[in-house]
């Protein structure tokens, strides 16, 4: 990345792999389990969190010298909740259909622990530009895992991707279904999301042994 210094580009690239918020920091698991039954929902959630985390990180970073340390968690919560509510109101007024799509995600964004985690761990101690990059990077790392989980859950659970019937039609028995293949309904339930996340963590740590924690 020519635009960014080496230190800055690390902020974006690290969370994609060796410091991934879901698989390494184990943050944001709840929403990763809740909304990954479909690829589309994963993508929407990833982008929403990216917007909120990048802007929120900048706001917290700008305020980092005036926030009283005793109530900093409350201040962080207020910032993210206010941000999300305002964005939601603006969308409801000017882009109603989009806001309908996002409505379920709003509550999940506010409670996403990645957001509070990055405010606390990064934005309170760094300048706005670096905080912005950190927000983008961590949200991208989060989105990446969501997309991978969403891809497998939708493909194996419903036989579709983004709503397209890529494996054929299960009712008309075409494509793979003509050979006796069946969708695995279990993939649609949350336990399988946890197992898929577990498999990703397993694969990642066996490829990079340095990530395995000491006991």
């Amino acid at each position, binding site marked *: 990345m020519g635009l960014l210094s080496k230190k800055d580009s690390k902020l974006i690239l690290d969370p994609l792999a060796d410091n991934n918020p879901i698989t390494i920091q184990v943050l944001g698991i709840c929403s990763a389990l*809740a*909304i*990954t*039954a*479909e690829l*589309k*929902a994963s993508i*929407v*959630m990833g982008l929403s969190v990216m917007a909120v985390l990048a802007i929120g990180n900048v706001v917290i970073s700008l305020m980092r*010298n*005036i*926030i*009283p*340390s*005793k*109530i900093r968690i*409350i*201040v962080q919560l*207020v910032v993210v909740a*206010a941000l999300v*509510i*305002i964005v939601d*109101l*603006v969308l*409801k*007024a*000017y882009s*109603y259909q989009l806001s*309908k799509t996002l*409505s*379920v*995600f709003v*509550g999940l964004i506010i409670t996403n622990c990645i957001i509070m985690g990055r405010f606390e761990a990064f934005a309170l101690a760094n300048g706005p530009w670096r905080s912005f990059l950190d927000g983008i990077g961590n949200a991208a790392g989060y989105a990446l895992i969501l997309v991978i989980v969403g891809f497998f*859950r*939708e493909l194996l*659970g*419903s036989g579709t991707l983004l*709503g397209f019937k890529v494996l054929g039609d*299960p*009712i008309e028995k075409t494509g793979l279904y003509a050979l006796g293949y069946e*969708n695995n*309904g279990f993939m*649609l*339930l949350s336990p399988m999301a946890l197992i898929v996340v577990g498999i990703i963590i397993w694969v990642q740590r066996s490829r990079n042994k340095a990530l395995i924690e000491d006991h």
Partner: protein
Amino acid sequence: MMENRTDKNSYTILFAIGMVLVVGALLAYASEALKPKITENKRLEIQQNILYAMGVNDNEDGSVNFIPTNKVASVFSKYIKKQLVIEGDKVIEDDNAYLIDLKKEEAKAADPNYTRRLPLFVGEKDGQTFYIIPMRGKGLWDAIWGYMAVDKNLIVDGVYFDHKGETPGLGANINQRFFMDDFKGEEIMNGNSFVGIDVTKGNNDPKNDDKDDHEIDALAGATITSNGVTAMIKKGVGMYIPYLKTLKN
């Protein structure tokens, strides 16, 4: 060591008060300033939903497309011939019946002396008359609601369902074509008695060829939302049956 300014109690309290005032004012302003537009969007959405249920929509294969918002008002007045409010035995015509808030009516109906107002929309398409019934119920996380269009023989012509916060990819799919399209042609009556339509797992009829079974395939992984739809139809449509029966004769 000098005490940090931001650690003082007085500073903390002042900061908290200031933050509450600023954020409160900001949110109140945003909410008030955008309210007229949001209310208008919601009003048009109701018209779009009612039209959708009776099959007046811009659907292409697989996707749900409403009549665009800039056209919906005129299309609504073209297709919806009458808006009725049923109050006990009385039936009144009211051009703003679609604005009746079902949630508020349900709350008021808790009072036994209150006669609940039931809005009903009479639409006409290709020379056929449809009765569109609004309903409201509970899903897994929050409210679900919908509209069901029936003809005078009480056979379903179409439905529209929506939800406030069902699980994306699972219960949230009640507003998808593959679920809603199944309702077309189903009967809600068994002879002279009302049975509704069960959204059930044991249907064994994925192509939905059997239109007399009062059953629709449930959504995989969304049992409670599916049950919520069943209950909503039983209760919501059930209230209209006494009136709808009078049409049949």
